[in-house]
């Protein structure tokens, strides 16, 4: 009898089926199947053996490293030569820029600050993230946890606060703004909501000759940047300057214009962008909610009414429910409005709170207690039916297999209060989009939007910012805006939406040598500098007084010296290398090893210092004269350039990697390059 192992028949043809190991099932499914294409069993068997081999290799390749970091070590083969012509390779080495959704060239603007070229530094930011002054105060800073300095030293460079420096110290930058064509291209674009996403789309499209109309329901543009970020964090003049700069570029702004029907406006435009945010604060349906509604406020609505000066006071005792950044803004605002006893309660343990560390810290510094593991149960009313307090139950967090479960302990506490602010999350809401005009919504009532093109199922309608996939932060809205603008431009020019412009990249060899190094490679070894704060007592009495004062010039220049210049790339050419080991000896962080090639797993182990950080790539050269390869672990490289400086043959070269993520402001430049 023939061996039918792994084989089964379908429509008279033999198929192969191999069960997937448990650990890979979420990735590959229960089993892998492929046809042998043979009806004859004897002919199918040798083909089956080949397929089984392939399947097993597939499993091997996907075998996740023991650390379970979810990174697949590239298989059982020797390591491939690194392809540095792929712009993403060196982009990834610049950790801050890679982590930024808008891919702002951080090291370059920090160097410009160090040279006191604040205008240039501001414009570099403005081109990529549109709101440097606003983001320099409010950004969620994904760049900072990514910063290499956090690994080679202690704390990351204060990137966000240096961005603010570019705003604070710049002069008039109007002459550097892009020219807006007087003759328009005849395409009209409608932007709904005047928040960061829409404003970014407007800025990217105006220089191309589009006519842009922005609809805003409030009486001033800015969206959640205006309504939900208190002015003690973001002064109105900073917001106004950067928002109106875009309006002044020629966008038509229609304030107090709530769009109640998409169908009504859609035909007036060649394309419509929806950037309406996630404007609906979540409610808390527990006993007493309805009865006490007069003193229970939805956090974001409450912040909005303060921004527009409709609300000017609050009770003496305030409870803020929620653990995110909105909760932090609410509690700090309440204290400034005159409350003298403000508490924040959050269901989870403090360590799991969603608020950014620094925002939580600021709230704590202002003397606001954070009661964690505290779950709301009931609003309590006095005899007159007025809110007098809240009942909570203490929770306990239990962790099994990395998953958290909150277990009620039965212990109840009662906290007196006059007002309650709810900051427990936000939802998207599109009551104004008709269900029958071709825009599909998913099961959570969010529009179905393509992750690359930002296009909805209606070809003319694009989404971005919180409106697309729920609450994120400003920098994500900007990134979405850039992508949507590219899509809208493609759409209006009848170009395939997936035919997207590549990033602009350039690698330029840098000058080195004593006293003529093109960048300062002797970086400061000092600890991260603290940003000066306003006097706490004064700040707590003034809703509009900015708490963070920003770096003064000396602090800014000192902090800028901490940047490692990770965009200064070490580029290696094996054909020039004589294997003298000079680079190995001079490298302060032991990044470079000359060794025989092997699988990635083995190579990582046998380096001068084993490369345990799997998030960071190894730079592998081609074969050298002795048959070995050069391997550089990018993880701890401080980009001092000494490898290149010590290299007798120029096999190492320091080249500045200029990576500019594609956005429409580049379009003119790309065209110029193509012509050249």
């Amino acid at each position, binding site marked *: 009898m023939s061996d039918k192992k792994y084989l089964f028949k379908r429509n008279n043809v033999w198929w192969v089926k191999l069960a997937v190991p448990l650990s890979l099932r979420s990735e590959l499914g229960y089993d892998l199947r492929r046809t042998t294409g043979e009806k004859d069993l004897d002919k199918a068997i040798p083909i089956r053996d080949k397929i089984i081999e392939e399947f097993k290799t597939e499993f091997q390749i996907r075998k996740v490293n023991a650390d379970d970091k979810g990174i697949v070590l590239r298989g059982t083969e020797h390591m491939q030569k690194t392809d540095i012509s792929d712009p993403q390779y060196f982009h990834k080495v610049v950790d801050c820029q890679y982590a930024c959704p808008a891919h702002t060239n951080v090291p370059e603007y920090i160097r410009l600050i160090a040279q006191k070229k604040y205008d240039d530094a501001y414009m570099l930011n403005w081109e990529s993230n549109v709101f440097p002054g606003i983001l320099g105060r409010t950004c969620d800073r994904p760049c900072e946890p990514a910063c290499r300095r956090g690994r080679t030293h202690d704390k990351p460079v204060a990137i966000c606060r240096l961005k603010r420096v570019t705003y604070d110290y710049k002069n008039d930058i109007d002459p550097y703004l892009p020219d807006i064509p007087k003759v328009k291209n005849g395409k009209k674009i409608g932007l709904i909501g005047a928040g960061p996403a829409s404003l970014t789309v407007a800025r990217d499209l105006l220089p191309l000759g589009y006519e842009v109309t922005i609809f805003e329901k409030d009486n001033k543009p800015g969206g959640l940047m205006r309504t939900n970020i208190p002015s003690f964090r973001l002064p109105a003049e900073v917001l106004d300057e950067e928002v109106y700069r875009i309006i002044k570029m020629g966008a038509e702004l229609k304030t107090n214009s709530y769009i109640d029907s998409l169908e009504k406006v859609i035909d007036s435009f060649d394309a419509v962008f929806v950037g309406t945010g996630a404007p609906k604060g979540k409610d808390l349906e527990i006993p007493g909610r309805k009865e006490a509604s007069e003193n229970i406020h939805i956090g974001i609505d409450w912040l909005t009414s303060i921004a527009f000066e409709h609300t000017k006071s609050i009770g003496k005792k305030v409870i803020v429910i929620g653990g995110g950044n909105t909760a932090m803004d609410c509690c700090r605002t309440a204290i400034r409005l005159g409350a003298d006893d403000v508490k924040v309660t959050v269901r989870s343990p403090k360590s799991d709170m969603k608020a950014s560390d620094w925002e939580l810290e600021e709230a704590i510094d202002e003397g606001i207690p954070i009661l964690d593991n505290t779950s709301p149960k009931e609003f309590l009313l006095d005899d007159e039916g007025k809110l007098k307090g809240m009942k909570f139950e203490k929770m306990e967090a239990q962790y099994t297999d990395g998953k958290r479960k909150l277990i009620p302990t039965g212990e109840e506490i009662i906290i007196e209060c006059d007002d309650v602010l709810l900051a427990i999350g936000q939802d998207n809401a599109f009551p104004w989009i008709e269900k029958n005009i071709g825009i599909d919504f998913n099961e959570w009532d969010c529009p179905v939007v393509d992750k690359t093109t930002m296009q909805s199922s209606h070809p003319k309608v694009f989404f971005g910012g919180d409106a697309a996939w729920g609450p994120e932060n400003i920098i994500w809205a900007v990134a979405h805006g850039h992508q949507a603008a590219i899509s809208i431009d493609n759409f209006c020019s009848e170009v395939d939406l997936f035919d997207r412009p590549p990033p602009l990249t350039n690698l330029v060899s840098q000058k080195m040598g004593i006293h003529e190094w093109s960048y300062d490679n002797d970086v400061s070894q000092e600890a991260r500098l603290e940003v000066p704060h306003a006097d706490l007592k004064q700040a707590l009495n003034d809703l509009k007084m900015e708490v963070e004062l920003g770096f003064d010039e000396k602090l800014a220049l000192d902090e800028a010296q901490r940047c490692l210049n990770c965009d200064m790339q070490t580029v290696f050419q094996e054909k020039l290398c004589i294997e003298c080991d000079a680079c190995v000896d001079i490298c302060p962080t032991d990044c470079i090893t000359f060794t025989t090639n092997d699988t990635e797993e083995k190579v990582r182990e046998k380096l001068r210092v084993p490369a345990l950080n799997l998030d960071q790539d190894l730079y592998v050269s081609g074969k050298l004269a002795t048959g070995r390869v050069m391997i550089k672990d990018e993880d*701890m490289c401080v980009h*001092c350039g000494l490898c290149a400086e*010590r290299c007798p043959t120029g096999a190492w070269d320091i080249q500045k990697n200029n990576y500019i993520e594609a956005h429409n402001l580049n379009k003119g430049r790309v065209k110029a390059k193509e012509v050249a």
Partner: protein
Amino acid sequence: MSYFKPINKHPNLEKNKLGLTRRDYEGGVSTLCAGCGHDSISACIIEACFRLNIEAYKVAKLSGIGCSSKAPAYFLNASHGFNSVHGRMPSIATGANCANEDLLYLGVSGDGDSASIGIGQFIHAIRRQVNMVYFVENNGTYGLTKGQFSATNDLESKNKYGEDNLFPPIDLTSMAIQMGASYVARSFSGDRDQLVPLIMGAIQHKGFALLDIISPCVTFNNHDSSTKSYDYIRNHNEAMGKTDFVPLGEEIKTNYDDGSSVEVKLHDGSRLSLEKTDHNFDPTDAGKSLELIREKNKEGKIITGLLYVDNKCKPLTEIMDLPDKPLNTLEQDELCPGSEILEEINKGLS
């Protein structure tokens, strides 16, 4: 040219038994030409001292004049050092050795310093079995005076400007064996796997240890007609198998087939394990060593590895029967036995 090296180091850098990392054994930033073989040798000395858990303050670095003799500034910042006049380092080493035999003496010299101006001193330090490691950083050229031939340059080699070398070379290893050196090895600055164990062995050896290390001069002697260039050495190097240094009390990890390895026990009990490529070769037989070196020279090969070792030799201080305590620590009462003993001696003379 760089004048500093960032002080931060890899957080996962290995530590030795003293709790020190490799970087704690570094010296100043080298001012030699980029790519100089001497810098690789300095790095190997750092590596060897790190692995042997050597306390830097118990080391004395001695040198003469030349590019090589600048090198001690670039390793072991925390050690003692003495930079002598040209070719006179062996005398300084001899004197220092007698005064304080407790220090580890690392003499760093070059082909000019040892094979020309200081050859007499060099020979007598060997003859006297001074307990030291004597590095000859051999690049066959006078780099510091712009590339003239040195006494170790091969006959068929040309200089950078195309002139022929008219005189045959001095082979320092053969000469050292003949003069009685008790540890003689040759290596190549570009072969760390071989050089580091050889340095470790030389440090643990008691007696005169010569390391003749071919160290290409990237500026004046790394051209196509040079016999001391990176490429030439790589193509003509005949390494004598793998060398392993096994510290005292550690197991030998490299396994060779029976009879294919030689083990040499050093004075402190640590061992050097050598893979044998030639079954007749015995590194403790001076005659065979000299024969091998001559043979390979004839073939145009450069033999590298441990060439000769005599682990039963007596170092200078034992030959001279000096007291166990270093001379520089002897107190007045130890140095001057007193008038009673003087009288006794005088009585014996009458």
